[in-house]
């Protein structure tokens, strides 16, 4: 059937070429204007503290989660929900998983809070086709440029921890966690982009700019660490030798760095979230 049209094939091809060429030529000038004027600005590459007297170039933030203290109350999840403002319950940057285990004949519940691991070797960053998710040069926190994300969700397939969430619909409506668990500190993300835990970098940046210490001063500490009523979360610069909680004091890095568990460490993602598991405390 395709051979029959041989007689007018040349003219049709000619027509297609002319039309395609015309469209291309016509779209070049406005396309160039659009590109030069609407390119997404490089946001978040320069932390606020870069301008302040305090240097923030060498931080290695770490989060310690003590499962022997965690009571599974989920307040970290709700504080995160309020602070980072996702009204839909299908998005929870922090999740508390519950597992029933038998310890010495008695049945117990063990809780596993799971934020983003802020990997030193993040698979999601390697996967992103446009480089919208990246490690901040200043402290290695893995963040997402919401102006650049095309929403392909390849990073979600790449993340071994399921820590990434997609805005399937436009986030609208009331966030029930506000104001009981905190006030929103970052704008809502648009529909069609991926988001995840940021270690509350807005608090770290503004806190460091004011000369505060994340982990010690509540204003500069991630919301989940501030609210934890059980003393299960500690945050700090691992290079400083200790991680802290505003309410529950310090933990020396040396006490857990060799014995703590990192989730799926066999994948060489090098998470910055450390866990003290129930088994370790009994030794």
């Amino acid at each position: 059937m395709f051979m029959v049209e041989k007689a007018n094939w040349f003219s049709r091809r000619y027509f297609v070429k002319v039309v395609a060429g015309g469209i291309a030529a016509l779209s070049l000038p406005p396309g160039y204007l659009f590109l030069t004027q609407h390119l997404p600005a490089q946001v978040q590459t320069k932390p606020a503290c870069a301008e302040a007297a305090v240097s923030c170039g060498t931080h290695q933030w770490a989060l310690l989660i003590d499962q022997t203290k965690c009571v599974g109350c989920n307040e970290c999840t709700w504080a995160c929900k309020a602070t980072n403002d996702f009204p839909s319950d299908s998005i929870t940057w922090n999740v508390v998983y519950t597992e029933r285990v038998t310890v010495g004949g008695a049945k117990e519940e063990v809780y596993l809070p799971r934020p983003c691991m802020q990997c030193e070797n993040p698979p999601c960053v390697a996967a992103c086709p446009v480089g919208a998710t990246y490690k901040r040069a200043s402290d290695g926190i893995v963040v997402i440029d919401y102006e650049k994300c095309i929403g392909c969700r390849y990073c979600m397939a790449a993340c071994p921890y399921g820590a990434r969430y997609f805005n399937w619909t436009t986030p609208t409506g009331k966030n029930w966690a506000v104001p009981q668990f905190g006030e929103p500190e970052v704008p809502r993300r648009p529909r069609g982009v991926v988001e995840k835990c940021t270690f509350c970098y807005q608090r770290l940046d503004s806190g460091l700019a004011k000369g505060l210490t994340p982990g010690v001063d509540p204003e500069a500490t991630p919301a989940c660490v501030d609210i934890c009523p059980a003393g299960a979360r500690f945050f700090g610069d691992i290079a400083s030798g200790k991680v802290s909680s505003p309410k529950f004091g310090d933990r020396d890095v040396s006490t857990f760095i060799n014995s703590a568990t990192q989730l799926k460490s066999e994948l060489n993602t090098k998470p910055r979230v450390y866990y003290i598991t129930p088994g370790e405390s009994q030794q």
Partner: protein
Amino acid sequence: MKSAGAFRDTKLLFWMGSLSVLVASGLYGGYIVVTQGLGVTGLSNSVVWGVWIAADLSFISLSAGAFAVSALIYVFRLGRFRPVARAAVFVGLIGYTLTMLTLVLDIGRPDRFWYPLLYWNNSSVLLEIFWCVSLYAAVLVV
């Protein structure tokens, strides 16, 4: 002769009619996805890739077959395949057009589908896929 022509017309009408219904429902579905977002697909944060990707891969494999046949004819000069040459190229073009349409609808920000042209993350497999798809499609169109 006349009755055969009439029969052929009814048949054509039937196929064109059903295809138009299909295309119209597809366009309507695409419109819903673009206006209301991917939430309507029933995908969730635990199942992030759905029928989109399956359909997309089917179109790619269809085009791959067409590509192989075209290569047999145009590169390796196997003359006995010549009768299907144009059909092969055309099927390749259709397959890749559908692939790109599916992908554009599948990503959360269809308005940013051209970003991979500008922002290259060389470690990403998807970037390579994007370039292969667009370059092959461009070749097919020409």
